[in-house]
């Protein structure tokens, strides 16, 4: 290369190094090797310089470089190799296809269970709820919309159990009075119904007499006009006694007795529930076969199918909820395929989420538990909602609100999105 040529290139490069962008037109650089000397950028963030070399002959390749200059020096960050040219082909056409929704015919459907009875219809409620009636798996709206929106019951205890901080905060002022507690759940937090847990009757705990618990039920029924679920202590004998007493005393109210388990004398526990027209939850333990067996025994004992709800047990998120997920999904599919014993609504006790330390423990790195806890409970419940749960027992009002919003979307009609989804690509957030 001549001295003059070198100088010419150096001049060009000097200009390049001093400018951010430079466009050269009609310049031919004819050299085997091209060395660029660019002064390093000051310390701090790198700067970028794009070089594009246009082809001399038509149809040739455009070559692009991206140079990065930092205080450490200059390097090439873009490929210097030209990308291979796309082969010339026939003109491209848009292919129009039609999507057919893959609808399945089911031979079975879920019964509808009515909880609570209105005044003048044998009960004393101002509102009742209906659950179930599903003809397809949940969120298979292309097959069928659910007949009823899944509902949420907030838990009330007759003896306050140890409660996680965020839950305690929501009920602090009413913990000592189940009737006030229930009122707060309905009037302030807008729950669909109440699940009243009469844990004080536990023979291994306080062992309060059944008649005392009946007084609590009475008070709660007077405090709210929604239906209620009666929860026992988990002791098979005492719960049998409790359900019998409640059945007779509150006949016609269409309460839900929670729960009947395999270790009970099933004909004995079912008889008064059937006789006085109440509902029952069958509690099985994350096992479809146990659920079938239990349900079969309860139905054989005479409880009508449309008075039965199945609870396959809900594990906390991270502590076995995936077994709940698969058990519920199998139960619901099996029911729709024709398994009679499983054609009943499903119940999900998402409250159990609070057993997980991820929900309640104060750990700075994990963020505020006032938000983390409810989100954890809601996420647990949604696992159930997506696999077919129709009834939820929950604790935190915020968690309940999230689940209700999802449940409402399942039955919403004539909905329209305000802003297009694709905005997400360009929006500044």
């Amino acid at each position, binding site marked *: 290369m001549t001295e003059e040529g070198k100088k010419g290139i150096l001049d060009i490069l000097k200009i390049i190094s001093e400018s951010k962008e430079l466009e050269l037109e009609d310049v031919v650089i004819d050299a085997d090797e091209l060395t660029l000397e660019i002064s390093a950028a000051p310390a701090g963030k790198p700067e970028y310089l794009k070089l594009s070399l246009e082809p001399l002959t038509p149809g040739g390749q455009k070559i692009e470089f991206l140079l990065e200059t930092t205080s450490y020096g200059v390097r090439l*960050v873009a490929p210097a190799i030209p*990308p291979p040219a796309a082969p010339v082909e026939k003109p491209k056409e848009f292919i129009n296809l039609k999507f057919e929704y893959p609808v399945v015919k089911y031979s079975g459907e879920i019964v509808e269970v009515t909880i609570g009875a209105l005044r003048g219809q044998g009960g004393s409620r101002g509102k009742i709820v209906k659950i179930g009636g599903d003809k397809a798996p949940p969120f298979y709206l292309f097959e069928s919309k659910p007949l009823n929106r899944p509902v949420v019951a907030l838990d009330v205890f007759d003896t306050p159990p140890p409660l996680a901080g965020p839950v305690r905060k929501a009920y602090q002022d009413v913990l000592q009075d189940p009737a006030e507690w229930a009122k707060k759940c309905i009037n302030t937090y807008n729950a669909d119904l109440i699940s009243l847990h009469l844990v004080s009757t536990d023979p*291994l705990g306080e062992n309060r007499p059944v008649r005392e618990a009946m007084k609590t039920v009475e008070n709660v029924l007077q405090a709210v006009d929604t239906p209620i679920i009666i929860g026992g202590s988990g002791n098979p004998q005492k719960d049998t006694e409790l359900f019998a007493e409640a059945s007779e005393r509150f006949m016609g109210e269409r309460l839900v007795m929670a729960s009947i388990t395999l270790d009970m004398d099933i004909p004995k526990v079912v008889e008064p529930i059937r006789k006085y027209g109440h509902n029952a939850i069958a509690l099985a333990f994350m096992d479809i076969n146990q659920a079938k067996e239990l349900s079969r025994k309860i139905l054989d004992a005479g409880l009508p199918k449309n008075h039965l709800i199945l609870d396959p047990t809900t594990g906390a998120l991270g*502590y076995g909820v995936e077994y709940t997920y698969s058990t519920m999904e*199998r139960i619901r599919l099996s029911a729709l395929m024709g398994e009679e014993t499983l054609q009943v609504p499903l119940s999900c006790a998402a409250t159990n989420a609070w057993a997980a330390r991820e929900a309640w423990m104060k750990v700075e790195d994990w963020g505020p538990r006032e*938000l983390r806890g409810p989100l954890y409970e809601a996420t647990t419940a949604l696992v159930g909602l997506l696999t077919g749960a129709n009834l939820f027992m929950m604790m935190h009002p915020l968690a309940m609100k999230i689940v209700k919003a999802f449940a409402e979307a399942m039955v919403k009609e004539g909905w329209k*999105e305000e802003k297009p*989804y*694709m905005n997400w*690509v360009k929006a500044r957030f």
Partner: protein
Amino acid sequence: MPKILRPLDVYKHLPGTNCGKCGEASCMAFASKLIERKVTPQQCIPLYEDPKYSEKLQKLLETIRPPVKEVWIGVEPNILRIGGKEVLYRHELTWRNQTAIMIDIHDEMSPEEVKKRVGFVDSFKFIRIGKELTLDGIAVRCVSENPEKYVKTIAEIMEITNKPIILCSTDPNIIEEALIVASKRKPLIYVATKQNWREIGELAARYKCPTAITAEDLSTLKSLSATLTRNYNIDDIVLDPQIKIGNIAETLSTITALRRAAVEKEEKELGYPIMTAPAAVWSIEEGDENDKKILESVIASSLISRFVDLVVFHTIDTWTIIPIVVWRDCVYTDPRFPPGVKPGLYEIGKPNEYSPVLSTGNFALTYYLVRDDVEKAGINAYLVIVDTEATSLQSSVAGKKYTSDKVIEAIKEVKVGDRVKIKALILPGYAARLAGEVEDALMGDGWTILVGPRDSGEIGAFYEKVFKPWLEEKIAKEKEVKTNF
């Protein structure tokens, strides 16, 4: 039902020479590993190099292709594999390839913000049963509409992380500029639409990068997929059926229909991974920040429940991410066996004759948490694991798998009473109601039952405030008894 492949189905499309170039002893062994996806077809060198096998190769690839294609984003050693699923329902077969969680960054964020967000993706770790739950990559959005600005942001990101990236813009010119810098990382191109499919299709083919496609309805999405495949021979496609933030039920329904068509109807055009962006909450919803964070998180979890293969997420608050990564980890486990440990007697630290005896169930997570907490608190103890059929403690108390009979039996069977002078059994707080029955049965052997905390995280405080004073008093009393004799 899932299509179950047998080794013979695969073997017949291999050379059958047992040449050993793949590292396996025989072609049959290679076939078995192919089914388990422990090897890739490329490892059979003759199949790829010898032209006479080209027909076999084609057949083999067809045979082992799952109903949902596995798509790779990124380059070794940071390849992100998404899709590859064979079934709709988890109970049929363990789901393949966990949902990828990508965090968004846009080109008008300050360099500090970009750095912070990349740093979050790189360093996020949530430990569960000794496993690190992490995030998968970055979705870079072009909001400036300025290619240079966008390219600069991408280069900055590539400088600090090797995680896979998604290039997000509907403008093909911007995508092309970005590919010049980023194609060597094999990013996912987002997105081809009914409007830009020619340009994006060409770019995806030319740069050999996977590309996402999106449409408001499934017919258009299916058409787009066919269009790209047939015109550009593109087979690395990711489908975005679009979230309807205003009706999440509709969204889940659409995704389910789409995947069912792929798996059960074997519609090839839809046999690709599904992605979508819960981050869209931030461009649609108005109002309270925390409400949006919660909504984004629960949408992501629901999508994970419904087998979505990749989500783009915006919020980088740990509390919104924990439930998502935990749920993802749970739902992708083997549905048949809960992870359990062997029931029996375990030692934590160096227990001696004055150490407490703890008890819990045999769910693996329970065991590891308890062990870890007791170790951290610096306590030496015996731990008696009761067989609860590997269900968590709280569930097994409710489900009557952790019962007083079982505890009593376990204590007697492992003969831990022979190892301690002061026999103190600490029951988990959730099993408090069993304390009476257990004590009645074991009292005769000199046991005292103490009820510990509900969560083993509080075992240290319990040890200091309850157990130690109790032990000291007990020892003092025994001394008294001895001196009286």
